[in-house]
């Protein structure tokens, strides 16, 4: 049967109308939600139910939940909303790793997303520990997960005994690198010192599975360099005080007195700040290395 030419025209017009109306729709203000109602929705929360419902497509379902995890983390991290929440992060990671218990990266990156201090992450090292322990139940031979657990205790909880215990366990696993055993010993003997932190971040920067994780490790290493720089300059400030009997009021004063050659700067090139009343040296507020690790951190 021959199609009437008007039918083709109508088809094109209707298609164009659908596109046009969708563009109009996109310009509308999104409909608001009542106060206190979160837009973050997770229809299914039971990993066991989901694992069964996925039949033989559990790995693919796990990938879909992984993509949702990355999107949830990324969108929340970039959000300017002061009340933003990472409330779905752990349930999503739990679903992902229940659907695909061998998904190492979900455990490793998941623990990074969960531990990172708010607003960059969920500030939930307890959930990261639960996730990594779940990973170790599925993969008892995976030294990387045990090392990651040690790292959470070391860096975020400052529980050096537990950290050393996990580094030791990791060092006893198949194919574990030989730097783990000395790291465990140093952590146990000296707590969190800068040398062991440097070892950890150097290994993370070397072995990272993703560019962003490698970049984060490099940033941490640069921060450690900045902290070394601050320590060094504070010692010079102390020498100045010992010789002159008073604290310097500016870098220029120290340069004139021959204690410095130039204005000291952090590894990003931003000049350090000098507190003339205490002699403390800090980063410039605009430095990309802010914030440095917790001052209570024994680094």
């Amino acid at each position: 049967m021959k199609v009437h030419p008007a039918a083709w025209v109508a088809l094109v017009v209707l298609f164009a109308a659908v596109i046009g109306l969708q563009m109009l729709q996109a310009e509308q203000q999104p409909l608001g939600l009542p106060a206190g109602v979160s837009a973050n929705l997770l229809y299914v929360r039971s990993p066991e139910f989901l694992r069964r419902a996925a039949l033989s497509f559990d790995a693919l379902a796990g990938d879909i939940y992984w993509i949702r995890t990355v999107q949830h983390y990324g969108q929340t991290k970039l959000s300017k909303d002061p009340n933003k929440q990472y409330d779905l992060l752990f349930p999503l990671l739990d679903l992902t790793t229940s659907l695909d218990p061998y998904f190492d990266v979900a455990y490793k990156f998941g623990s990074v997303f969960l531990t990172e201090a708010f607003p960059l992450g969920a500030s939930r090292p307890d959930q990261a520990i639960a996730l990594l322990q779940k990973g170790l139940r599925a993969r008892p031979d995976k030294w990387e997960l045990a090392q990651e657990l040690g790292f959470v205790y070391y860096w975020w909880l400052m529980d050096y005994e537990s950290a050393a215990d996990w580094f030791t366990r990791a060092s006893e696993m198949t194919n574990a690198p030989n730097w783990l055993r000395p790291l465990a010993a140093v952590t146990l003997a000296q707590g969190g010192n800068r040398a062991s932190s440097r070892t950890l971040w150097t290994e993370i920067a070397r072995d990272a599975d993703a560019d962003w994780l490698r970049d984060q490790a490099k940033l941490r290493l640069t921060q450690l360099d900045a902290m070394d720089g601050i320590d060094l300059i504070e010692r010079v400030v102390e020498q100045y005080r010992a010789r002159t009997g008073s604290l310097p009021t500016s870098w220029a004063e120290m340069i004139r007195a021959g204690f410095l050659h130039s204005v000291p700067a952090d590894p990003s090139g931003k000049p350090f700040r000098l507190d003339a009343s205490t002699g403390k040296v800090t980063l410039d507020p605009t430095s990309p290395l802010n914030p440095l690790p917790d001052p209570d951190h024994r680094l």
Partner: protein
Amino acid sequence: MRVIAHVAVNVFKESVRDKILYNLVVFAVLLISTSYLIGELTAGQDVKIIKDLGLASISMFGLLIAVFIGIGLVWKEVEKRSIYTLLSKPIRRQEFLLGKYCGLVLTLIINVAVMTVAFYAVLAYMEVTSPVNIRASWPAPATDLAMLKAVALIMLELMLVTAIALFFSTFSSPFLSAMLTIAVWVIGHFNEDLRNYGATISSPVAASIARGVYYVVPNFAAFDVKLQVVHAQAVPLRYVAVTSVYGITYVAFVLLGAAIIFSKRDFK
């Protein structure tokens, strides 16, 4: 044997005429477009996701073909009344049925083979274009040949699904056959729960029935090693061999049942 081959080739030609092979284009577009789009969304897990997606798609496309073509194999001949002409020729009903089965299996083998080649081609491209440090973090190369074990077991699963669809189509309507085949396939994935049912209930009779069903219903979960191969976990050849023998034996059992029912069916 020649009769079976003749029927089989006709089934394959019919599937080509029915544009069944168009699914290959959909598969290729899905895989290529996903590999292009997915990079930014997965935090570096694009190869793993393409492997999962590729193997799941091979399984899903094959399943749809096996069920929805399988249920019509006999029904179409009855509906068009061509069965009378066919059975008046020197062809036995069992040969007709086996020919139909082999024809659809041939269609599935060609489908799965082409999809597998496209799957490996996309992965080879990803391997070549990925930096060395990223490749080093993969548990196995993108084009790991161990994934062929999963493809082989998917093919065996599809052969069993086809046999079950054909079995139901020898005595029921296409709609009912499709429902029953899908139901058996779904139940076959819950086999582990049937086996462990006894631990959660107090009635020994119910536990025994569940355990009996566990042994009778085809264990489709056994054919699924996609997760293991993607993560480079060991899938011993013995496991593949035992599962293959189990699948082939089950296919023979179902086809024999279908042949018995079909031979008793009255077409007058």
